[in-house]
């Protein structure tokens, strides 16, 4: 079974981002998707802290502490990019102006509920940042995550047990084992890695999982 590594997962997500899309890549794993976006396509990266047209990390020594991304890492601005304040930045998200946002998750329910901000542990210090705004704002919300947690339990679930970030908001989940489309009728599998069967995937997730492999057209 050819489980995808994190770079392969990022590359797989990148394949589904069309030219001209306005995209927000969440902190952590989703940020790496930027490395796999095709150089010959213009794709607009937005960062919640007030920039659109985000470019790659600067060369060593060119970092500017006032030009950072949502993860507070130094970035650059492309020609044609611009800056704006937090009100406008979150209007972009909440107002449905972003085409795609890519987020990590602790759990996603088969109908698209997202849990990615809080483990619910009693001693955890809660922190939400822009996760709830991104979850409900973008036209499409993609999640990328490993399908199983460290205990081997599926993170794609019937109902989330972790505190929710947003309801019915995730449209697609990219994992190391399969890609799922989510909707009111539950999850359907649109891709699997070689050597994995739908039956095995149903067993891993404990979900019904419709077979959507034929009917789905992946945007280029």
């Amino acid at each position, binding site marked *: 079974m050819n489980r995808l590594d994190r770079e392969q997962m990022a590359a797989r997500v990148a394949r589904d981002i069309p*030219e*001209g899309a*306005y995209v927000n890549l969440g902190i952590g794993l989703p940020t790496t998707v930027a490395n796999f976006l095709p150089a010959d396509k*213009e794709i*607009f990266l*937005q960062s919640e802290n007030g920039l*659109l*047209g985000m470019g790659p990390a600067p060369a060593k020594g060119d970092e500017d502490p006032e030009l950072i991304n949502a993860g507070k890492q130094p970035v650059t*601005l492309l*020609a*044609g*990019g*611009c*800056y*704006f304040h937090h*009100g*406008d930045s*979150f*209007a*972009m*998200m*909440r*107002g*449905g*102006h*972003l085409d795609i946002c890519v987020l990590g998750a602790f759990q996603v329910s088969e109908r698209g509920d997202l849990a990615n901000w809080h483990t619910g542990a009693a001693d955890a210090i809660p922190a939400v940042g822009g996760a709830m705004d991104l979850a409900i*704002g973008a036209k499409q919300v993609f999640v990328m995550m490993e399908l199983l947690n460290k205990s081997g339990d599926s993170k794609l679930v019937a109902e989330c047990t972790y505190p929710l970030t947003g309801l019915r908001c995730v449209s697609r989940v990219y994992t190391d084992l399969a890609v799922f489309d989510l909707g009111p009728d539950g999850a359907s599998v649109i891709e699997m890695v070689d050597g994995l069967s739908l039956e095995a995937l149903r067993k891993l997730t404990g979900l019904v999982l419709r077979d959507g492999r034929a009917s789905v057209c992946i945007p280029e």
Partner: protein
Amino acid sequence: MIDKSIAAVEAAVADVFDGARIMIGGFGTAGMPDRLIDALIAHGAKDLTIINNNAGNGETGLAALLKARRVRKIVCSFPRQTDSHHFDALYRAGEIELELVPQGNLAARIQAAGAGLGAIFTPTGYGTLLADGKETREIAGRHYVLEYPLHADFALIKAHRGDRWGNLVYRKTARNFGPIMAMAAKCTIAQVGEVVPLGALDPEAVVTPGIFVQRVVATGDARRAAA
């Protein structure tokens, strides 16, 4: 390569449909996208709902659209002006519907649409005819009226300069409703004096980021005065 600039003003408005809700920028004639309106008249779409601060001045722009009888309803704050005779005549004849909105509520409702809010409690208009029948609430000792967002299918706006990604800067008080309408419409079409190369607009001074703009049409008639 993404290029939102369109050479012909006719092509820019070609998909406006009958019954569309259209925001039109401008405060009086300042910032009114006259070339886009001319194209809209030529295009022929009818039964439109127009959202603008006024209801047309003189014979051109929005006034000409009204005169052509393409507008079913207008949402505005200040229809009555010395030269709003086309609106006046239609209104008195019962041939156009008017939704009168205090100017700040007009702006706030447009902003609410752009920002994805479901409704806002605004103090403006409380206790007046324009809040008749609307939900009100006292919050922290002050009275507010519940107002809903104003969305649109299209926004036709005028800006000073734009680039192929749709970034816009405006000129003086022609800015007015342009930036907030751009955020509230599904498809924003900007008439600009000139389309400049990518990177020519100062990223600190861009007023409307390109994400809010779908089409840019250069008219080549930018004022080159002081600014």
